[in-house]
């Protein structure tokens, strides 16, 4: 194709491949209005509701015993779920990116399944699996192990719901990076673990961080699945989102928004980290 742009004055070309000013401004306005309505307003109403009555009331709401129990339980769940799913993510990404094997496509598409399944169905699956009417129920009862309507059940459904996050960040990243650097390191005599630690890990650092942050945010916010398995025992099996629901249903709106503001803060931090990781990535591509 000959260069058409050379034959046409620059201004005409710009006009032909862009929109009139009024179109541009109206489109920007429509989009900003839509996003304000759906993103900015919900965000503002949470923060307004949380701090409307002053910092003191906010502080009382988030330090009240049931709220503290909910925060502690949520953090406890995170400490188990996030490392496990991070290890799984690294392991499966290593297998998929560094090796060729049959059934790889199938394996990768199975990872996506937890995203497609309704959280409520996830909860139900485990109630049936572990519950007193379910498969392991009678055996568990005999040995006096409680999973459903107890903390282990909450951990398991959140583990399931956040399973894909780290894996999905790392698989494309490690596939793109290939295996040349690792092979070089191994050929030069470094051990497998050493190669992973000093060659692979620095390369996947930001993707891993972003995956962990996403997994973290989803784990703290998981609601539908936890609602089915938790039994909502106050101070015992209420995670932060469930505690918010309880407060809201008891018309304690300020307290509900106060606890919500903590999770909202976390959501905003998640978004900032995502933008930062993307910015890093863009710069790397430009310098490379």
């Amino acid at each position, binding site marked *: *194709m000959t260069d*058409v742009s050379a034959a046409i004055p620059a201004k005409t*070309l710009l006009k032909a*491949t*862009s929109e009139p000013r009024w179109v*541009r401004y109206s*489109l*920007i306005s*429509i*989009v900003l209005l839509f*996003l304000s*309505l759906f*993103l900015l*307003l*919900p*965000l503002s*109403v949470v923060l307004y509701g949380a701090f409307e009555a002053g910092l003191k009331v906010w502080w009382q709401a988030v330090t009240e015993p049931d709220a503290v129990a909910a925060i502690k339980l949520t953090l406890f769940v995170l400490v188990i779920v996030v490392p496990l799913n991070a290890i*799984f993510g690294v*392991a*499966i990404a*290593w*297998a998929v990116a*560094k*090796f*060729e094997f*049959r059934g790889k496509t199938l394996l990768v598409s*199975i990872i*996506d399944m*937890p995203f*497609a*399944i*309704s*959280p*409520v*169905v996830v*909860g*139900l*699956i485990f*109630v*049936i*699996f572990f519950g007193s009417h*379910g498969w392991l129920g009678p055996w568990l009862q005999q040995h006096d192990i409680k999973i459903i309507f107890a903390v282990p059940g909450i951990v398991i459904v959140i583990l*399931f719901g956040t399973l894909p996050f780290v894996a999905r960040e790392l698989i494309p990243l490690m596939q793109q990076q290939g*295996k040349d650097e690792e092979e070089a390191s191994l050929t030069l005599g470094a051990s*497998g673990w050493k190669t992973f630690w000093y060659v692979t890990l620095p390369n996947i650092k930001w993707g891993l961080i972003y995956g962990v942050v996403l997994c973290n*945010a989803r784990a703290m*916010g998981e*609601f*539908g699945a936890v609602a089915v398995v938790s039994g909502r025992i106050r101070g015992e099996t209420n995670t932060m989102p*469930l505690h*918010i629901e309880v407060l*809201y249903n008891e018309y304690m*709106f300020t307290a*509900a*928004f106060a606890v*919500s503001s903590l999770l909202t803060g976390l*959501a905003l931090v*998640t*978004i900032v980290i995502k*933008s930062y990781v993307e910015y890093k990535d863009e710069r790397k591509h430009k310098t490379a």
Partner: protein
Amino acid sequence: MATVVSRTVIPGFGLTLGFSVFYLSLLFLLPVAGLLIFTLQMSWADFWRAISHPQVVASYKLSFLASFAGATINAVFGSLTAWVLVRYRFPGKKVVDALVDLPFALPTAVAGIALVTLYSTTGWVGQYLQLWDIRIAYSEIGVIIALTYIGLPFVVRTVQPVLADFEKELEEASASLGASRWTTVRRVIFPALLPALLTGYALAFARALGEYGSVIFISGNLPYRTEITPLLIVAKAEQYDYQGAAAIGVVMLVAAFLLLLLINGLQWWTNKRNGGAA
């Protein structure tokens, strides 16, 4: 089943694949199989009765239509948002771009109470709509609003990269051949975006279909009117009607699986269109 095809010096194949398959089987395949086997123990008549009860059928209709409406709104405004974010410059663009991910990051229960507070008759938005006799909270429109919110990032994030990679030369060629700007957008740019747009549409629809937390507050859960299907599963589980819940759960699983197949197909089409890149 898995065999290494090419030789490599890299270690850890057995360890990483073994652990991944073990983890996935234990956490995912086994429990899902448990649900299916549990449902198979029901007689066909019981299963059919559970999934075809009028209250359940009403919930399918609402879930399906409201998800459809939400995904359609997102297809239109999501494409516009992607267009504006890629093609135009305006102050605060980076912040707006980052905020698009909010529905992914904000817990659904928080979104749920925020939306109902906004759209109730005393809320910031609801009080003005009430003047025109429009009720959003505790109505079907409320369900659509929540499902639009939850699916908002999908279309933007699938269309945005395709639009950013779109070759400007094609537009210039179209313009130099005498096409008006509108014709170029309609006949040159839009067809190139279509696979990505449909992928985003299907993802938003699939997410909306299973959504629970952001909907149940604003919907008010009126039987036969504003009950979504996931809510009925929770209600049945809370009444210890596990068979009824499992039957509806299987219907939702099948729907999710079909949508996933569709999405994979669409993604394959998108990649083919973009010459195998991405």
